[in-house]
């Protein structure tokens, strides 16, 4: 019994002293709003925060990949900083929830930033996301690059935006959507070799949604 008691005290001490890294940024509020909260709570209760984040990201892909009723044509192209798109209001809150679930995962943040800044032309929302993400992961090189890229894009300087974006693109873990964006921007700037390389990389990626777009891009660039 003495041994069991000693083991119990030692276990309690370890329980109290061992601290997994914080999953909430300092000062973050507890939020129960948003759809899927019950599902997410169920996943958390089974110790599956990462999986909950994965499923939330898949839902984001489905949400953003589904055309809205009043949409004319596609929304995944780059139309320039003057063509603001008001649709898909849930992109930012969804990305924020994914960040809350898995603060160590920057892929959804980059995806959201790419969508908000370069597709939907809402750079302020993109910068807000980047700010929150960097509060959790200060020093993340990809996110820092994107801050600069979005900032220059908001100011209308495409060349500088692309120059700041490329270091992030060339690091592993970049969403294909962002790579596709960068390829198109390089193409617009006349940087054909870079655009061609990026389009070829897109063809090798797992996200087949952008393969057709990459083939068309290769054709266009190869013609010139």
């Amino acid at each position, binding site marked *: *019994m003495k*041994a*069991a008691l000693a*083991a*119990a005290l*030692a*276990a*309690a001490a*370890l*329980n*109290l002293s*061992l601290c*997994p*890294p914080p999953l909430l940024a300092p000062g973050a509020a*507890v939020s129960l709003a948003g759809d899927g909260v019950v599902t997410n709570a169920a996943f*958390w*209760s*089974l*110790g*599956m*925060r*990462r*999986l909950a984040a*994965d*499923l939330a*990201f*898949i839902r984001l*892909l*489905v949400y953003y990949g589904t055309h809205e009723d009043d949409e004319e044509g596609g929304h995944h192209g780059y139309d320039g900083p003057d063509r603001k798109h008001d649709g898909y209001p849930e992109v930012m809150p969804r990305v924020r929830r994914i960040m809350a679930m*898995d603060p*160590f*995962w920057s*892929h959804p943040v980059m995806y959201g930033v790419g969508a908000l800044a370069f597709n939907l032309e809402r750079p302020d929302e993109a910068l807000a996301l980047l700010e929150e993400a960097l509060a959790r*992961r200060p020093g993340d090189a990809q996110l820092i690059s994107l801050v600069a890229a979005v900032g220059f894009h908001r100011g209308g300087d495409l060349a500088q935006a692309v120059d700041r974006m490329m270091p992030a693109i060339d690091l592993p873990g970049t*969403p*294909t959507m962002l790579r596709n964006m960068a390829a198109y921007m390089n193409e617009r700037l006349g940087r054909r070799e870079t655009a061609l390389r990026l389009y070829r990389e897109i063809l090798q*990626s*797992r*996200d*087949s*949604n952008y393969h057709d777009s990459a083939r068309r891009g290769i054709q266009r660039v190869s013609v010139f």
Partner: protein
Amino acid sequence: MRNAALLAANTWRELTRTRFVPLIVLFGAVLIYLGMLLGVLAGDVEDRVLLDVGMAVIELMTCSAVAYCAATGLLQEMEQKTLYLILSRPVGRPAYLVGRFLGAFSAAATAAVAMTAALAVMLLCKGGLEAGPLLLSLWGVLLKAFVTAGAATFLALISTSVLSAMTMTGIVWVLGHFVGEIRFLAQRTGSASAVLLVPVTWLLPNFSLLNYRDRLHAAGGGLSEPLLAGMLYAVLYAAVCMGLTSAVFRRKEF
């Protein structure tokens, strides 16, 4: 120790020969394969989704298996009286309990390793196998299974049926993942009743300590995790459960 090892080996033999372990592995492999369908929807992060779904399935199957083995093993032996031929020999009751506990855990661990190997093969075929995160996740699963086996053994002895033992184990397992949240909420509310919740969190197994799967890509990766301390915690917690089980079992008559 010798008797405990003999009993553990016999329990392992029972669970493999009665096809329980092979069925768990087969079912788990099928579920992991179905997880590949989700991965197709995930595009760039297919490997991550496959890893997460796979390890989630492996953890659920392993912990369910160990809870079932620990709960049924003891209760069945008492009901079917196969216990008489063991306790009528110079086998101490603590040694008997440790043997059954280790046997249940080793059978479940065998299943976990087999399922992880199947997952590794699938990831390799996809070109996305990262041994480090996979092994770290598996380690966390095994530690959780170790703790669950201890809790299930104790709960089986104090409950009246396998169903109630497994239900209680399931509740403890779920609450064990909320220990951090319970403490956080208790601090935020600051009320007297909330403060009473804090000692409860000392009794519950703190599975968030062993949830390496959820922190695979934290700063520094797995190297920043207190792995040895986590293992020590799991061993101590299971030891406490077994100590309590032994105290109850000593007083039992057959």
